């Protein structure tokens, strides 16, 4: 079977890709997709640790991932509503141009 560290490295790579997209892209929707990828990387970690734990019958990792998916769905709904509200106000989804709060 694949060792635990391979899953952890894969999860770290997905997290880094999501982080790179969230930090460098201009479009707010792509930033949100990057955040979703980062959340998914964390979920993969939870499942991998659960599979390799000493007491998998406790189901802790599975429960954590189920609640995490629920929170991610709520976060996506609110985030996209915010993006639509910003688009209506500024007529853009470019995060560089939405800078009214910049000091």
């Amino acid at each position, binding site marked *: 079977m*694949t*060792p*635990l*560290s*391979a*899953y*952890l*490295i*894969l999860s*770290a790579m*997905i*997290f*880094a890709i*999501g*982080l790179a*997209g*969230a*930090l*460098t*892209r*201009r*479009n707010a*929707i*792509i930033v*949100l*997709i990057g955040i*979703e*990828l980062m959340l*998914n990387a964390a*979920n*993969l970690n939870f*499942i*991998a640790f*659960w*599979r*390799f734990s000493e007491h*998998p*019958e406790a*189901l802790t990792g*599975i*429960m954590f*991932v*189920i609640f995490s*998916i*629920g*929170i991610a*769905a*709520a976060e*996506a*709904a*609110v985030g*996209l*509503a*915010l*993006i*639509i*509200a910003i*688009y*209506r106000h500024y007529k853009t*989804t470019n995060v560089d141009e939405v800078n009214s709060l910049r000091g």
Partner: protein
Amino acid sequence: MTLPFIILAVLTIAAAVAAMSLRNLIHCALAMVGAFGGLAALYLQLDAQFVGFTQILVYIGAVAILIVFAILLTRGGQVPEKALFSSSWIWGVLVTVAVFGTLAWTIKNSFASQRVPAERVEATVKEIGDALMTKFVLPLEVIGLLLTAALIGAVIIAMRDEVKK
């Protein structure tokens, strides 16, 4: 490392990179669906069937559709001619390289490579349902409340403002 894991890992990484780097937003959303599907297959490979199918149902079924709707509502379907990356992209790349370096170094020096998987784990839907209704009933109620509040909040935020006269 087994061959299925390598295939799934390469597919997931390629889809994630495509989702973060393509120019057309619709293509980005479709690549994101590929990445979520690859992750669902990895969950199935790790004997977490319920979570794998929940991933397909929630992410590919709901979140991806929501994102496509948002792209259409913000007229993101057209390909932008201007620069794709924000003005401070170099800092983003530096932070990402630092984060990945730290994570990889920590994993390499941890005890993770010596762990052995538990033999034949069972996580049936019945067991998960039992656990959700007994030990985890309070978090379940809280997540229900959170989802309700978030959805009402999303509707109120996205609602068109009344024109004041």
